[in-house]
């Protein structure tokens, strides 16, 4: 099923990953027992692929460690929500704290990992994920900038191409930046990338596309991961 070519694991016998599969691939790379913040939107779905035995402890920036799955039915409590404002649950060993303490935790480099969505990621790991830059867009940053500079590792979860086919992995971000040189890995529907800080991006795995095809569709120097 998998073809190894130039060091990249290529899954060319199948199509690109669906949203749920992308989340599962990323979840599989989260170390056991890590403290993790999942950004709002698609990154939140990564939590569905983290079983209790992973020991992963979820942080939500609105003041909680030990967040559990989404709340349903009678378990819905308006005082217990995640950063996306959806009702969630509390796991044994949870703790609550106020916003300054919560962001001190983020900004102080204590989270092992955060997962964020993105409009664009650059070769050097610059992230653009908060503002389309359109003149009439209402700017809204939330905790994205704090997470991007604060977490020990930043994983981006996004489709590799826009609806109009433009790659979102770029030489230089054209959207307004969230933070400089902060992204470590990019998980997309067609490939997983590692940002090394050099002038090349490492490709670890592809889905429904060969390394060579990927190279032709992305205007960024790509290197194959050494197997």
């Amino acid at each position, binding site marked *: 099923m998998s073809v190894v070519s130039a060091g990249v694991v290529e899954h060319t016998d199948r199509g690109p990953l669906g949203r749920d599969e992308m989340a599962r691939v990323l979840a599989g790379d989260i170390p056991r027992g890590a403290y993790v913040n999942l950004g709002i939107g698609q990154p939140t779905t990564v939590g569905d692929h983290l079983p209790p035995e992973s020991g992963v402890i979820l942080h*939500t*920036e*609105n*003041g*909680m460690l030990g967040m559990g799955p989404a709340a349903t039915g009678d378990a819905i*409590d*308006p*005082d*217990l*929500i995640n950063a996306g*404002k959806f009702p969630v649950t*509390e796991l044994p060993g949870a703790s*609550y*704290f*106020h*916003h*300054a303490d*919560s*962001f*001190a935790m*983020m*900004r102080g480099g204590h989270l092992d990992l955060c997962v964020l969505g993105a409009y664009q990621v650059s070769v050097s790991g610059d992230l653009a994920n908060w*503002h389309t830059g359109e003149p*009439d867009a*209402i*700017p*809204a*940053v*939330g*905790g*994205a*900038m*704090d997470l991007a*500079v*604060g977490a020990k590792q930043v994983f981006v979860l996004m489709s590799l191409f826009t609806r109009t086919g433009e790659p979102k992995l770029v030489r230089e971000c054209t959207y*307004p*930046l*969230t*933070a*400089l040189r902060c992204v470590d890995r990019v998980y997309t529907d067609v490939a997983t990338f590692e940002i090394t800080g050099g002038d090349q991006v490492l490709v670890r795995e592809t889905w429904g596309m060969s390394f060579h095809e990927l190279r032709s569709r992305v205007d960024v120097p790509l290197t194959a991961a050494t197997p």
Partner: protein
Amino acid sequence: MTRLCTSVDEAVSGIADGSTVLIGGFGTAGMPFDLIEGLIRQGARDLTVVSNNAGNADTGLAALLAAGQVRKIVCSFPRQTDSWVFEELYRNGKIELEVAPQGSLAERLRAAGAGIGGFYTRTGVGTLLAEGKETREIDGRTYVLELPIAADVALISAHTADTLGNLVYRKTARNFAPVMATAATTTVVQVRHVVEPGVLDPEAVVTPGIYVDRIVRVAAVQGRAA
């Protein structure tokens, strides 16, 4: 000294036109709905409001915005699907917006409460939100200088207060309230329960009474955070 008020109107009395008002809550969790309704009745205008969001649906902060009492809002995330009141005012040029990273917002409030004149943070470096702000290299890293946000009034919500003003919160409804309580000249708190001193566990008090000026007890409302 903390005063136990007998009505919401008493609790929000005296808020002057042009005041800077901190409003607790993250979305609707921890939003002080009753105090905001009191502020609408009280009628102070030309307010600068500091709150994480810019109101949801048509109640709470959104209702205050709709009442035309707010000149400027300082927040981190005004673009929620149900922030239509804000969006219309903003698009019509009827409200000023200052967007701040959520962590810088929280830390700037803490700084005001803690006597910190300013602090250096890495958040925002190299972005639009650091434009016009001073930057500085410390230990080989670039930081941006952020200044405190002090306010005239904080309107917050807590779960239980004792009559000395000590507060405990409930779950993620705690959010901004404890730092806002420290950053305002007058802190007004709506609570679900009021107890005598000695009932709250001294190890578990989140906001000590020194930060609390007025308390008012409000009824629980179904499906709404205290």
